[in-house]
C-alpha cells in the first residue's frame, strides 16, 4: 500500500513538472519568435522629373520634404508596397521594365531600430550599396537612378 501511494505521488509531481516544462517551452517559443520578429516597412517608389508641375496627391505627407530637398517640379508615385521584412529575407522591387531594382534586406532589429541593407541594381550591375538604420518616424530617401525623363526616389519608412 505504501509503495503504491509513493508511486502515485511521484507520478503526480512528474505530471506537474511536465506541465511546467511545457509552459516553459511555450514561453521560450514566444521569446524566440519575438527575437526573430518582422519589421513592416513602407516603401514608395517615386518618379521625380521636371516635366510638368504636378505632385501626386498620395505624396502629400512627403511634399514639404521633397520641395525642401530637391528642385524637381513633378513627383509621381509609381509604386507603393508595405513590406513585412524578416531577418535576411531580401525583397526586391523593380521599375523601368525590370532594368532598375532595389533589393532591401532586414539585417537586424534592436528595439525600435531596424537595420536595412539596400542594393540598387541597374541591368545586372550594383550601382549602390548601403546600410541604414530606420527608427520610428524617420524616412530614408534613396534617389538618383535615371528613369525616363527624371529619376527614381525610393522612400522607406519603418513601422514598429
Amino acid at each position, binding site marked *: 500500500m505504501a509503495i503504491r*501511494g509513493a508511486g502515485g505521488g511521484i507520478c503526480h*509531481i512528474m505530471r506537474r513538472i511536465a506541465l511546467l516544462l511545457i509552459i*516553459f517551452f511555450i514561453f521560450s517559443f514566444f*521569446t524566440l519568435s519575438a527575437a526573430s520578429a518582422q519589421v513592416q516597412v513602407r516603401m514608395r517608389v517615386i518618379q521625380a522629373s521636371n516635366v510638368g508641375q504636378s505632385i501626386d496627391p498620395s505624396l502629400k505627407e512627403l511634399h514639404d520634404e521633397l520641395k525642401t*530637398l530637391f528642385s524637381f517640379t513633378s513627383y509621381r508615385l509609381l509604386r507603393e508596397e508595405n513590406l513585412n521584412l524578416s531577418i535576411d529575407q531580401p525583397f526586391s522591387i523593380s521599375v523601368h521594365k525590370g532594368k532598375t531594382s532595389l533589393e532591401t534586406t532586414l539585417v537586424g532589429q534592436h528595439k525600435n531600430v531596424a537595420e536595412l541593407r539596400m542594393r540598387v541594381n541597374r541591368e545586372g550591375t550594383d550601382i549602390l550599396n548601403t546600410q541604414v538604420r530606420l*527608427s520610428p518616424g524617420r*524616412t530614408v530617401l534613396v534617389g*538618383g537612378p535615371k*528613369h525616363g525623363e527624371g529619376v527614381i526616389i525610393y522612400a522607406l519608412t519603418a513601422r514598429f
Partner: protein
Amino acid sequence: MKDLCSSTSKLLEKYFDQEVTDKERLLVEGHLKDCSACQSALMSMEELRTLIKNPVEEAVQKENFPWVWQKIEREIRLQEKRTWWQALRSWLDVTPLFKKKVWIPAVATVVVLLFITAQIFFKKIPSYSEASVVEYVESETNNVMVYDLEKAKVTVIWLFEEPEEESATS
C-alpha cells in the same frame, strides 16, 4: 450454573470488547469469580489479541505512511475552500520530490534551457544614436551624397549618375 455459564459466555466477547452495559458487566464479573471455564475463555481471548496485535503494530511501524497521509491531506484540502494563491502554492509544492532523486534530470533540463534562453535575454544591445542613420554607403560606378534633414527626420542618399549614362537612359 451450566445455564448461567452458557448465557454469560455469550456476553463474554462483548465484555472483552468493553461493549457491555453496567448491569451485564456486573453479571459477567460475578460469574467469572466462580467459573474457571469462563476465566479460561477470557484468558484465551486476551492471548489471541496479543498474538494478533503485536505483529500488526510491528508491521505498521515498519510501513511508510507519509505518502498516504499526504494524499489524505490533499483530498482534505481539496474539500476546503482555498484562495487562488493557496491553490497555486499547493500546486507548486514539490517538497515531496526532494525526498526522491527523480527531480535531478528535470532540474538539469530547466537549467540548460535557462542557459540557452539567457543568451537571448542578455544579448548585448548596441545603442544607436539618431545621428548615425547611414552605416555605410558605397558605389563603384557613381558618386554618392548623403544628406540629413534632421528637423524633418529625413535622410537622403543620392546617386549621381554619369552624364553619358544619363543620355543613354533618358
